[in-house]
């Protein structure tokens, strides 16, 4: 289903509330007036996998009881290694779910459980590695029948070209990757995931453009790093919104995946609840959007933290405690009707310091989202939304932009407008040239799938 109007205005979108809120897991309600912590963890690789997960799950549930955290969500992001062993995956999901059930019953916790399947495809292989694709689908099935409440993935269709392009700040390549190649893969993938989820009556959560937008964010780095322009990273984020939206167009219902910062756009467009991560995910990657991204979240996450001993406990429980207090503050605001006040502080905190934060600000998101839903197809909305973002950045005098950023913005405007004049032709022509230059790029396999 194509979305053609916006569910929120910048005035009424806020954390804890989503029009299409959800009930799932063990008595968990998401998006109906409560922000829920979603904790993510990474097992130590030198340890036995099952014991690591057992240890992590137990420590988290205990800490929740100790702190009085009433609602929470656990997310297990399967690793490439774990994906090799289907039996192990089934067992570990089963183990976690049964522990969750036991604690929930004993202590009255409300718990959701998200399982994220790794995209293990080697896109250089014929038909984009069909064998791995099938394995991924089997693991989605497996996760569904062993206790997952929400399915997610950070899929990577189009990334060969993206990686080549991003460090060359090559906008044609980036557009061709996110606005064209990726769209074919997203459609196929999410048709399948949605059908698996529906079959088992669980939720098809959402997809993160992590391999694109977060890579760009990570490469852009700090305020003074000068690796790639922050304005480039910010338009990659906007274009990623056009790509990640496809999961919802194919029937995903959320909650959207935490590391998809583009979720702000998806919430405005779809009205589905979204997980976000910001300041506390400094443990996984630094960002310049630590507060602003909280403004519209329904779940609040830390990204992955390793299961190592710190003075105050193991990594996951320490970060659960931090999330606990952050969400409590938001929930208190809701309880007192002050959610908009707190939201505005979060926005003001980051908005004008950096373009990456700027494009996550609800008012900006709203303007760009209007463009997204107004365009006729994925490719043109990808280009048009980026142009709109550039326009809004240029027009905001108070936005902190270095000379280099301004130089890039000028260049990007010209380039994007040129592409917009005839997107399909430009992209198709460019793709011919990339084949051969870009390792592993198999354009035809995208179109045929």
């Amino acid at each position, binding site marked *: 289903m194509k979305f053609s109007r916006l569910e929120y205005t910048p005035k009424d979108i806020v954390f804890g509330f989503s029009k299409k809120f959800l009930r799932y897991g063990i008595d968990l309600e998401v998006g109906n007036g409560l922000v829920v912590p979603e904790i993510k963890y990474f097992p130590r690789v030198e340890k036995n996998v099952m014991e690591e997960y057992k240890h992590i799950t137990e420590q988290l549930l205990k800490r929740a009881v100790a702190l009085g955290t009433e609602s929470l969500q656990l997310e297990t992001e399967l690793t490439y290694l774990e994906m090799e062993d289907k039996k192990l995956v089934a067992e570990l999901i089963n183990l976690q779910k049964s522990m969750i059930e036991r604690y929930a019953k004993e202590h009255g916790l409300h718990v959701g459980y998200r399982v994220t399947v790794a995209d293990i495809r080697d896109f250089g292989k014929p038909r984009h590695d069909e064998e791995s694709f099938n394995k991924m689908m089997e693991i989605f099935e497996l996760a569904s029948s062993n206790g997952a409440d929400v399915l997610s993935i950070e899929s990577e269709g189009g990334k060969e070209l993206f990686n080549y392009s991003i460090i060359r700040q090559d906008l044609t390549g980036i557009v061709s990757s996110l606005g064209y190649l990726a769209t074919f893969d997203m459609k196929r993938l999410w048709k399948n995931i949605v059908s698996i989820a529906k079959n088992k009556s669980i939720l098809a959560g959402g997809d993160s453009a992590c391999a694109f937008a977060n890579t760009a964010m990570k490469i852009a780095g700090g305020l003074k790093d000068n690796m790639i322009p922050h304005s480039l990273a910010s338009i990659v984020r906007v274009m990623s919104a056009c790509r990640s939206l496809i999961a919802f167009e194919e029937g995903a219902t959320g909650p959207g995946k935490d590391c998809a910062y583009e979720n702000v756009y998806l919430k405005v467009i779809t009205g589905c609840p979204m997980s976000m991560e910001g300041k506390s995910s400094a443990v996984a990657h630094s960002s310049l959007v630590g507060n602003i991204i909280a403004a519209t979240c329904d779940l609040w996450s830390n990204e992955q933290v390793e299961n190592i001993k710190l003075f105050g406990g193991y990594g996951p429980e320490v970060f659960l405690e931090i999330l606990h207090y952050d969400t409590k503050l938001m929930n208190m605001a809701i309880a007192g009707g002050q959610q908009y006040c707190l939201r505005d502080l979060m926005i003001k905190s980051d908005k004008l310091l950096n373009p990456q934060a700027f494009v996550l600000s609800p008012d900006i998101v709203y303007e760009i989202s209007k463009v997204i839903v107004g365009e006729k197809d994925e490719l043109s909305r990808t280009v048009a939304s980026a142009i709109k973002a550039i326009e809004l950045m240029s027009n905001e005098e108070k936005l902190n932009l270095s*000379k*280099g950023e301004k130089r890039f913005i000028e260049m990007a405007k010209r380039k994007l407008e040129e592409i917009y004049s005839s997107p399909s032709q430009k992209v198709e022509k460019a793709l011919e040239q990339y084949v051969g230059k870009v390792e592993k790029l198999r354009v035809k396999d995208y179109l045929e799938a």
Partner: protein
Amino acid sequence: MSKEELLDAIRDSIVNLDFDKSKEYTLKALEAGATPQEIILKSIAQGMEIVGKKFEESEYFLSELIVAGEIGKEITKILEPYLKGAEMKKVGKVVIGTVRGDLHDIGKNIVAMMLEAAEFKVIDLGADVPPEKFVEAVKNENPDIVGMSALLTVTMVEMKNVIDALKEAGLREKVKVIIGGAAVTEDYAKSIGADGYGANAVEGVRVCKQWVKQK
């Protein structure tokens, strides 16, 4: 335009990251009697130097440094037929790859490109490279340096495997080994007996340059 003017124009088109113009002027300069050597020294080298400086002074982005490097490479390709087989002088040779099981190659690619910009010959083995491949490449290519990248805790150990495989093949003493990537640290480099570590591409290139200078 005079030959001198054309050489300057090539240089400036590199600095302005203008691929089309650089090509145009290069062909014109050749017509006007410039030798490939002149173009390399006066246009490309100088252009790259200016870009490098602008990067160091935080005026340019690393991505722009890379684009400039690619333009330089393209110009060199145009010059190749005129160079009569005289191989370009390289300061050293590096075999580089992301280790087995690890698909993160963006960081590694940046390092490879920066090395090329610093006039190293770079043989890039790609990502997910098993130890045998590293050994084979060292055998066949006889590089000065082996570079390895890893971003996952799980794959870090592969670096040690590569070093062990090099030892076993009697090749360890022939090369310097440098490692990098978000997962590894200087300490780890020491602990597995690598010769060097680069926290980022700039640092890695600095270390490699030093090594070939010492030679």
